[in-house]
């Protein structure tokens, strides 16, 4: 049985549910328990949400892909999408957020801090900013990323089994 799935999708919101469902089926078929499946499906969804929100797409470049790989000790989720050729403010924010999360001994503390921050915003402020801390805390995954010379970003999350 394969230990790896990869899909190319278009950067449209409805694709996220399909990707989560595909991830759930992939892991269910391989006998993972429902708690792990819920966590990995959530992580996959959150990473693709970020890729759709913050990726730079045009008519010639709509390449968004995701993969899930199961191993003996870990499950790795990876999402790739195009980014701006110029300085990318979102990339800078992503880097700072990952560093900020790593500054906490426990991702629960980072999640709580973020939760406190968003809770005092007004109801009209639509930003969440909880996604990465939720991946770290609820998804129990370590997030990392790299950007390539051809302006693709790869964001990965590693869930230790």
């Amino acid at each position: 049985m394969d230990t790896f799935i990869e899909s190319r999708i278009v950067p449209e919101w409805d694709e996220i549910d399909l990707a989560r469902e595909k991830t759930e089926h992939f892991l269910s078929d391989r006998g993972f328990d429902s708690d792990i499946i819920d966590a990995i499906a959530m992580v996959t969804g959150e990473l693709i949400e970020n890729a759709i929100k913050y990726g730079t797409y045009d008519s010639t470049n709509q390449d968004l892909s995701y993969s899930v790989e199961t191993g003996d000790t870990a499950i790795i989720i990876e999402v790739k999408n195009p980014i701006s050729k110029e300085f990318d403010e979102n990339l800078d924010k992503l880097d700072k957020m990952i560093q900020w999360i790593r500054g906490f001994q426990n991702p629960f503390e980072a999640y709580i801090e973020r939760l406190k921050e968003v809770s005092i915003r007004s109801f009209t402020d639509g930003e969440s900013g909880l996604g990465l801390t939720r991946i770290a805390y609820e998804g129990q995954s370590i997030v990392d990323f790299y950007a390539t010379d051809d302006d693709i970003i790869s964001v990965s999350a590693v869930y230790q089994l």
Partner: protein
Amino acid sequence: MEQKNTHTIKSLNLEITENEYISIIWHGKSTERNPGNFLNPILSETLSRSTAEGKTIIMDFRELEFMNSSTVTPVAKMLEQGKKGSNSITVYYNKTKKWQELSFSALKIFETDDDRISVIGN
């Protein structure tokens, strides 16, 4: 007299019942890009009614199958506003589902010493 209302967006359904309490039962999945556009007016209105009528709000997530992180924000804002105000809000979640236990137990930071705001897993 009991009043019932249902609000639905895609696969998320909020069933609101008003009697001596105002209860909001969450069903399905919350996966919208900006769930606050749907949730904020409902939650804000519920807070206002609770204040005006002195009724406890019950937020029941036990039937919720999934929510994205953008859904957590409106809920956290509601609890924070309720905490600052005079509202009583009880949140129920299903602690046998790990994702619910992790997501909703974190909301205990909004609990008050007098139990006006409480988050209960069962």
